[in-house]
């Protein structure tokens, strides 16, 4: 089948839909949003993380990012409490948004993302890079602007950071070829996101990998 050569928008939407089905099963928070005229859409997820500061030593925290408890608990943190001023400096809640859109020029999915504090202050690219996994740091340091750029979200029109899609075909090709060879359908979005996600702090739970193998009997 030619689908591995040509990843069209319909295929993109289909794979997103399968991906979201599994996300709903495990409560991973991905959802589909359509553009105003419903001609296209994207997949998105928001999650919150507590980022510990480095200046104030706060018992129980460590330098690093830990996943936040559910949003309701987070919002109960008294940010205007005097004692919490120290807390606020030591550990702040950051809201990460990840959007998966289709690029018709590259004919691949693209990962858009942004991060902000709860008061709306956006995180600078520098801060986001610091959260990038160590194994990708070398490449980012060699040429950061080749990898992550800032662009206007095609549907929302707001500035987002984008993981550049020009190499997507290159690293997806062996996976797709191999899946053809062993006669197994894979979910392009699942495979792709499992590869690019960690670069920007997005890690997919393992159950997506199992879902893929269970879906293999579904014809595309």
């Amino acid at each position, binding site marked *: 089948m030619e689908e591995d050569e040509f990843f069209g928008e319909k295929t993109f939407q289909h794979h997103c839909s399968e991906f979201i089905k599994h996300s709903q099963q495990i409560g991973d928070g991905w959802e589909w949003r359509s553009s105003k005229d419903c001609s296209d859409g994207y997949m998105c997820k928001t999650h919150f993380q507590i980022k510990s500061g480095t200046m104030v030593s706060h018992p129980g925290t460590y330098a690093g990012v830990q996943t936040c408890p559910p949003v309701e608990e987070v919002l109960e943190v008294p940010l205007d409490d005097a004692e919490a001023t120290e807390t606020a400096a030591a550990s702040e809640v950051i809201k990460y948004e990840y959007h998966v859109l289709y690029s018709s020029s590259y004919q691949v999915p693209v990962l858009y993302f942004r991060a902000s504090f709860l008061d709306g202050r956006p995180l600078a690219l520098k801060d986001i890079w610091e959260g990038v996994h160590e194994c990708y740091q070398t490449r980012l340091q060699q040429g950061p602007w080749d990898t992550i750029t800032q662009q206007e979200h095609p549907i929302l029109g707001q500035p987002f950071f984008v993981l550049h899609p020009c*190499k997507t075909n290159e*690293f997806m090709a062996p996976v797709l*070829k191999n*899946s053809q060879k062993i006669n*197994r359908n894979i979910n392009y979005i699942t495979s792709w996101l499992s590869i690019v996600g960690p670069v920007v702090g997005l890690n997919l739970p*393992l159950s997506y*990998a*199992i879902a893929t*193998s269970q879906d293999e009997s579904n014809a595309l």
Partner: protein
Amino acid sequence: MAEEPESVLQLPSTAAASGEGLMDVSPETATPEPPSSAAVSPGTEEPSGDTKKKIDILLKAVGDTPIMKTKKWAVERTRTIQGLIDFIKKFLKLVASEQLFIYVNQSFAPSPDQEVGTLYECFGSDGKLVLHYCKSQAWG
């Protein structure tokens, strides 16, 4: 950021089979530990109770990636995917700008912090975990 281990998932052993025959594995006896390098820290190896500290991993190349001479490795359960990637890159003498990806089920790249022990629990079969690896100039 720590991922919770997927301990609730119980896979029948057939589900984790990689599909293509494991018959093409070169008949090697259980190989010694990976050569010590910065990426592989020699931890204490005494097994405690019933849990083996090490699991068997079979590494398979995808695409044009060089094939490792030694494919079968005994690896500590706590070794992360990132650690394994670093090890394979050193072993294959890849340059820093080349990316190496590791896949389970030939389709899914576990996050770099994932421990191989967890992967073995979820995807292992016949006493080993099959991992496919692929080289790419991903961000070149």
